[in-house]
C-alpha cells in the first residue's frame, strides 16, 4: 500500500509514504490542505477522489458524496487522483 502515487488537481504529484492519513501525507509533501479536527467530524479536509481507491483508517462522521473522501480518514490504496 505504501508508495502509492497521489496526483493533486492534475498537476502536483507525490508519493504516499505510509503516513497515518492522506492528510498527513499531503502536509509532508507541502500540499496545503484545510483541516480542523483530524478526527473525521469537522469535514474541512473533504476532497474529491477522481481516480483510484482509498482505505479508511478512521470513521468519517460527515456527509460525503460518492466521489468525496476526508483526507484525515483515509490512505491511498494504489495510485489516486484528488481534486481540492
Amino acid at each position, binding site marked *: 500500500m505504501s508508495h502509492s502515487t497521489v496526483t493533486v488537481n492534475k498537476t502536483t504529484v507525490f508519493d504516499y509514504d505510509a503516513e497515518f492519513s492522506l492528510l498527513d501525507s499531503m502536509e509532508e509533501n507541502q500540499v496545503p490542505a484545510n*483541516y*480542523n*479536527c*483530524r*478526527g473525521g467530524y*469537522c*469535514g474541512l479536509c*473533504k476532497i474529491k477522489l477522481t481516480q483510484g481507491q482509498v482505505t479508511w483508517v478512521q470513521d468519517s*462522521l*460527515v456527509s460525503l458524496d460518492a466521489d468525496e473522501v476526508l483526507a484525515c480518514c483515509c490512505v491511498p490504496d494504489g495510485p489516486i487522483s484528488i481534486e481540492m
Partner: protein
Amino acid sequence: MTYSTFNKVKNDALKEPMFFGQNVNVARYDQQRHAIFEKLIEKQLSFFWRPEEVDLSSDRKDFMAMPEHEKHIFLSNLKYQTLLDSVQGRSPNVAFLPVVSLPELETWLETWSFSETVHSRSYTHIIRNVVSDPSVVFDDIVDNPEIVKRAESVTRYYDEFIAKCNLYSLVGAGEHQLNGETVVVNLRELKRLMYLTITSVNVLEAVRFYVSFACSFAFAERAIMEGNAKVIKLIARDEALHLAGTQHMMNLMAQGQDDPEMVSIAAECQDQVIQIFEEAAEQEKEWASYLFKDGSMIGLNAEILKEYVEYITNIRIRALGFDDLYPGRNANPLPWMNAWLVSDNVQVAPQEAEISSYLVGAIDSDMDDADFDDFDL
C-alpha cells in the same frame, strides 16, 4: 398528532422518517435507519468531560492584569456563549423530541443537548473564577442590547416551530384563531419550519460560536487565560460534532434519503437557508466590531476576525451543497486556530487513561501473604 411517551402501535423504526412519523416506542440501538446518529452518540459519549477537570487558577491573575478593553472582549464573549448554550441546552429537546420518530436520532438529540448543558456549567466555572460577583456577568446577558439582538435571531425559528407544533398537537391542522390572530398550521408548514429551524441551529453551531472561539484561543496564544482556552477547546470539539449532526439531518432530507416530502420542501427553502447564513455571518461581523470597539488585542483585530467569519461561513454553506456566500474567501486568515481545533491534541482526562487510581470501583487483585498480616479470625 398527540404525543405519546410510549407509542403502543407496533412500528418498524427502520421505515420511519427522522421527524413527523410515529412517536418512538422502544429505545433500541441494535439497528438504525440512519447509522450516523448512532456513531455521533458514541463519539459524543467518548468526548465526555467535566469543567472542573480544567485548572483555572492562573486565569484570575491573568484577567486582573488585562487592560479594560481586553476584559470587555473576554467577558462579552463569555456572555454570548452563555446565551448560545442556554438556548442549546434545552431547545433541541423541547423542539424536536415531540416530533422525532427514530430511536437513534431521539438519543442523539438528548446526548447533544446534554453536552450543551456541560458547556453552560463550564461558563459558570470560568466566570466564578474570574469575577467576584458572577451576577454582574449573567445579569447583563438579558440587558445588553448587542446580546439581546442576537438572542432574538437565535431563538426566532425555535420559538415559532415549538408554538406551531403545540397548536397542531392540541387542535390539529387548519386555520385557528389565537389571541386575535389567524394561525394556519398543517403538516407541510411544520416540516418547512422544522427545516429552517435546523438550518438556524446549524448556523449557530457552525458559525456563531467561532468568533468567541478565535478570541479565546488568541488570548492563549499569548500564554494568558490558558485554562479558559482549554475549556473552550473541549467545547469547540463538541460543537464540531453537533454541527456534523445538523448537516446530516439537512442533507438526508434534501437528498431524499429520508421523508420524500422533504426534498421539495428543502428545494423551496433554498433562498431562506442562504438568508439565514447571511444574517448570522453579518451579525457575527457586527459582533467583532462590538468586541473591538475600545481597542484590538495582540494578534487579532476586527478586520481579520470578519475575514475568518466569511471563510468559515463559506465552508459551512458549501457542506450543505450551496455556493460560497463570500466568493474568493477560501484561505484561512487565522491558520493558528487549527492547532486549537485538532481533536487529538485534547488532553486525555485521567479517568480515560489507564491510571488505576482513577478507575471507579476497580479492584486491586494483586495480593501476597503480607496482606493478611493484620487479619484475625
